[in-house]
């Protein structure tokens, strides 16, 4: 194909109650075809119960070059994690 179809990002919910997660990307001419392609490419081994697709160009991504200013300041702020509380024994799964 000389001219590729646009790129789409695929999000799949693997079970009811769980959130949609990014599974990968694929090419398709429009949204309907993207859904069908996603079904064939990403859910053929029973991976999902729901699919979202969004054209990749609609996603605004952070620039890796800015990682220093964006993410490093959070590294030494352990007090932002709720790890300084004593949990009662009855509370599980925290």
């Amino acid at each position, binding site marked *: *194909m000389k001219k590729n*179809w646009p790129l789409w990002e695929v999000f799949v919910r693997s079970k009811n109650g769980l959130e949609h997660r990014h599974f990968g990307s*694929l*090419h*398709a*001419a429009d949204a*309907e*075809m993207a859904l*069908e*392609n996603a*079904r*064939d*490419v990403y859910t*053929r081994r029973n991976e999902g119960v729901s699919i979202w697709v969004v054209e990749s160009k609609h996603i605004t991504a952070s620039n890796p070059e800015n990682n220093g200013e964006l993410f490093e300041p959070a590294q030494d702020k352990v007090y932002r994690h709720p790890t300084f509380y004593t949990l009662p024994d009855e509370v599980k799964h925290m």
Partner: protein
Amino acid sequence: MMKNENLIQYIYGIADNALILGQRLSELCGHGPSLETDIAITNMALDLLGQTRSYYQYVAQLSGEGKTEDDIAFLRTERQYKNVLLVEQPNRHFGYVITRQFLFDMFHLLLLQNLQNSKDEMLAAIAKKGIKEVSYHQRFSLDWMKRLGDGTPESHNKVQEAVNDLWKFTDELFHMTEDDRIAFEAGVGVDVASFKTLYLQKVSDILTEATLTVPEIKWFQKGGKQGIHSEHMGYLLADLQYMQRAYPDMKW
């Protein structure tokens, strides 16, 4: 009165369509026009081969001669395959692949929807399971018919060419063989002739929506259901049967 042999022949008339179309689609594995359509077509091939296995396992059990599903798939001669001519037609180009699929899917779904009410519990169960798979096949091929027909002038012409070429094989889908009639009268089989009008109406509607012309021809090709196949069938079987013919009883 239906004998075992009538039932077996009746099942071949349904199962061989799935095997031969599955084989045709398998030829495209790794050759699809895009990664996505390649996987979609291979998925359909696997669905059809899965259905074939269910039917053939049942035939093996009915025939009671110690036969296996593999013997039935690989060791029959050309005349013993009872698939319709439509499904053995070669891939040529993507327009043919989609048109052949569309013309067959529209029939296949109607067939299974009727077969799920069969008095034969095994056939009813196989049909029920197949309906979901075939509904998706139809959704895929129908969608592509509209895309190609209502797409560019080139895609329109190519898919119209395929429709014109393959149309002569549609009438055979609704022919009733002697075994079909016996199975129908026993409450096991489906009267395919009963939904011919519905089929033609549905297919014509889709073709019109896809801006394609419904061919008007008076003469239709037939023979597959009697085991009299087109010149393409021998080559297809040579591919399909090569391993078992060259290395009898070989196992993976």
